[in-house]
């Protein structure tokens, strides 16, 4: 949305530029048209003046003529006064006309002709006057002069009217021209105004829209600011800004709270802040902050602060430079968080880890004790028993021999327990031990291990072909050995055990009992036997260490074998389930992930 504003800002600028240009053009246009109007007005005035002057010439000539005629009739010289003044006025007016028409060659020519005619007329008048003064009023010459004079006067009249006509023609022509050019003026000015109005409206809507966006954005910012404030409080973090150019700091309210102070209760500067930093950390912090002011970058900085009430808190700070896209001002934006809880839980975790490590060490030393030190005395007890049996049996009473036999059985059982326990504790997971393994060979090896037991009980084992799987080979062999051994051990008396091993590939979603499977597909290997079985309610118990369902005198188990199976399967991120029915048999299902 902000991008729209930036974009429309450009549009606005362009619109404004265009409007300015149009206004200038319109001004020029209007000026030109007004100029034209003034010109045509002047022209009309000019024409009228010319016409008036022309009429005046005529009238002055008539004045002179009238004055002269009056004098001729009355011989009163008083009449001669208009005659002379008429002459003079005619000359003046003529000079004025000459001036007025100096740009019009046609009129100039006409004027020249008029001038000749006027001269002729005035000459004729003079001659008439001379003849009058000589008292030759009735002479032939006088009459001819009068006729001549009348003729001239007529010519003058026609000339003047010609000139007036010409002037009127000119006016008409110019009027036509200016009307043509001026008739468009109102419509042009009107259109420009409409255009301006449209531009104005467009700009208005644009600005209005931007304002709305800005208002909306402002609202959002307001919400964001508030939620930031809240999140700062909840997450125990704070923000601060360092204005590089002004060398000035701004702290968020929560930074004050984290320091155990009221928001904005002191001036946000380094000096005030350093007062809270733990004395042991001050040097380190000062060093890093000085570096930050140069490089405008602060890598993760850990330090402690001491609140005024003496509480020590652990802080973590980080900052990065932000260059404003608006005016290129630079500022360093920083975040400071109170990580005391994290540090404490980390310490706790570390302690626990150490404890675990110690426990593990103890456990492995226990392993050694079990494998070596415990076995040694037991071995000796057993060897001494065998010595007693061989060499001293003859000197023992019947009861003595019975006791010796009991001791021997107890020792044997102890050895079994120690061996199984060792096996269990050695069943660990190690990534390096994983290898793509031929499971069928593992099964053969397991059968080999149990060969004696199998032939003794005449067990029948049938198995599907199992594909290659990535497993810890010796553990899988152990698993097979334990499961088959288990089936043989818990077989029905007088019934040869039949063990069926079947294989299938299953989809994790199809097997509901797989809790939170990590893989999509699993190898399913099922061991089914016809042994004594067990009650279904013990199906989970049988995998628990030392958990036995039968009296140890009946069956020789230690209660560890199936625990080892479970551990092995779990090492492979698999599952093992047991199902049993008393006197019918047991089913063990092993699921190994298909990676």
């Amino acid at each position: 949305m902000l991008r729209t504003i930036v974009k429309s800002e450009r549009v606005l600028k362009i619109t404004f530029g265009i409007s300015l240009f149009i206004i200038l053009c319109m001004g020029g246009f209007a000026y030109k048209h007004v100029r034209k109007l003034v010109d045509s007005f002047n022209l009309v005035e000019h024409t009228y003046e010319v016409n008036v002057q022309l009429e005046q010439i005529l009238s002055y000539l008539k004045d002179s003529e009238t004055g002269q005629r009056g004098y001729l009739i009355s011989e009163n010289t008083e009449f001669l006064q208009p005659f002379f003044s008429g002459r003079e006025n005619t000359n003046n007016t003529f000079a004025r006309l000459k001036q007025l028409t100096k740009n019009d060659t046609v009129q100039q020519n006409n004027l020249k002709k008029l001038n000749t005619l006027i001269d002729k007329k005035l000459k004729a008048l003079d001659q008439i006057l001379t003849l009058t003064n000589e008292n030759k009023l009735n002479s032939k010459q006088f009459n001819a002069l009068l006729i001549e004079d009348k003729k001239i006067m007529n010519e003058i009249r026609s000339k003047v009217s010609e000139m007036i006509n010409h002037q009127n023609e000119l006016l008409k022509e110019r009027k036509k021209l200016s009307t043509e050019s001026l008739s468009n003026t109102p419509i042009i000015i009107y259109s420009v105004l409409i255009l301006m109005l449209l531009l104005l409206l467009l700009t208005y809507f644009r600005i209005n829209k931007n304002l709305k966006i800005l208002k909306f954005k402002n609202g959002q910012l307001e919400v964001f600011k508030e939620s930031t404030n809240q999140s700062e409080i909840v997450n125990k973090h704070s923000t601060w800004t360092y204005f590089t150019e002004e060398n000035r700091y701004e702290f968020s309210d929560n930074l004050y709270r984290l320091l155990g102070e009221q928001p904005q209760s002191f001036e946000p500067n380094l000096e005030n802040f350093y007062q809270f930093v733990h004395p042991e950390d001050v040097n380190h912090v000062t060093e890093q902050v000085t570096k930050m002011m140069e490089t405008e970058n602060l890598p993760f900085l850990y330090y402690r602060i001491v609140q005024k009430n003496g509480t020590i808190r652990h802080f973590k700070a980080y900052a990065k430079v932000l260059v404003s896209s608006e005016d290129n001002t630079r500022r360093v934006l920083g975040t400071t968080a109170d990580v005391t809880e994290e540090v404490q839980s980390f310490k706790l975790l570390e302690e626990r880890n150490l404890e675990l490590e110690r426990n593990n060490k103890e456990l492995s030393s226990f392993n050694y004790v079990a494998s070596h030190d415990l076995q040694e005395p037991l071995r000796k007890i057993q060897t001494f028993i065998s010595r007693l049996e061989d060499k001293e049996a003859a000197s023992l009473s019947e009861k003595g021999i019975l006791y010796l036999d009991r001791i021997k059985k107890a020792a044997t059982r102890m050895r079994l327990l120690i061996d199984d326990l060792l096996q269990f504790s050695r069943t660990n997971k190690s990534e390096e031990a994983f290898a793509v393994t031929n499971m069928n060979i593992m099964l053969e090896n397991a059968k080999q291990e149990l060969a004696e037991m199998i032939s003794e009980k005449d067990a029948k084992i049938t198995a599907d072909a199992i594909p290659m799987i990535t497993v810890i080979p010796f553990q899988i062999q152990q698993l097979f050995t334990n499961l088959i051994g288990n089936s043989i051990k818990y077989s029905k008396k007088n019934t040869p055990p039949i063990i069926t091993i079947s294989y299938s590939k299953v989809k994790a979603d199809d097997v509901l009992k797989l809790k939170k499977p990590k893989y999509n597909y699993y190898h399913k290997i099922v061991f089914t036997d016809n042994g004594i079985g067990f009650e279904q309610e013990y199906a989970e118990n049988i995998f628990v260490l030392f958990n036995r369902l039968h009296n140890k005198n009946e069956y020789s188990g230690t209660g560890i074998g199936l625990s080892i199976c479970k551990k092995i399967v779990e090492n492979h991120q698999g599952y093992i389930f047991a199902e049993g029915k008393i006197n019918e048999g047991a089913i063990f299902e092993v699921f190994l992930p298909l990676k």
Partner: protein
Amino acid sequence: MQEEDVFIILADDDEDDRLFFEEAFDELKINTKVATFNDGVELMDYLNKENSLLPNILFLDLNMPKKSGKQCLQEIKKEARFKDIAIAIYSTSASEEDIENTFVMGANVYIKKPNDFKQLKKVLSNVVTINWQYHTSGLNKDNFLLRL
């Protein structure tokens, strides 16, 4: 001492084990001469004496005070003079690590101490009657540990 007698030495800190060992050879109908040492230091002191009679077979317990079986094995294998001694490791534990290490260090056979006297006799009789020449040439990690 007769020419055909097999000279056997056992280095073991355990009194009972030395007793079983000696008794076993007493009962076995093989011409043997058995000497025992209480720890690695005693053993090496004896072997390093120039005029000592060197054994045909040396049984080495691994876990001994002062000087362990492995240290003894290392020292013996360094000396050309001892190259004809067949070395049998004789230990309570049969951990993969110990078997691997002693095999690499050049022991000839690895025996896990049995917990039955009859078995002990059988093992010892087997070891003494091994054709060492033949056994050593065909030695590998799988037949290194003597199984019964």
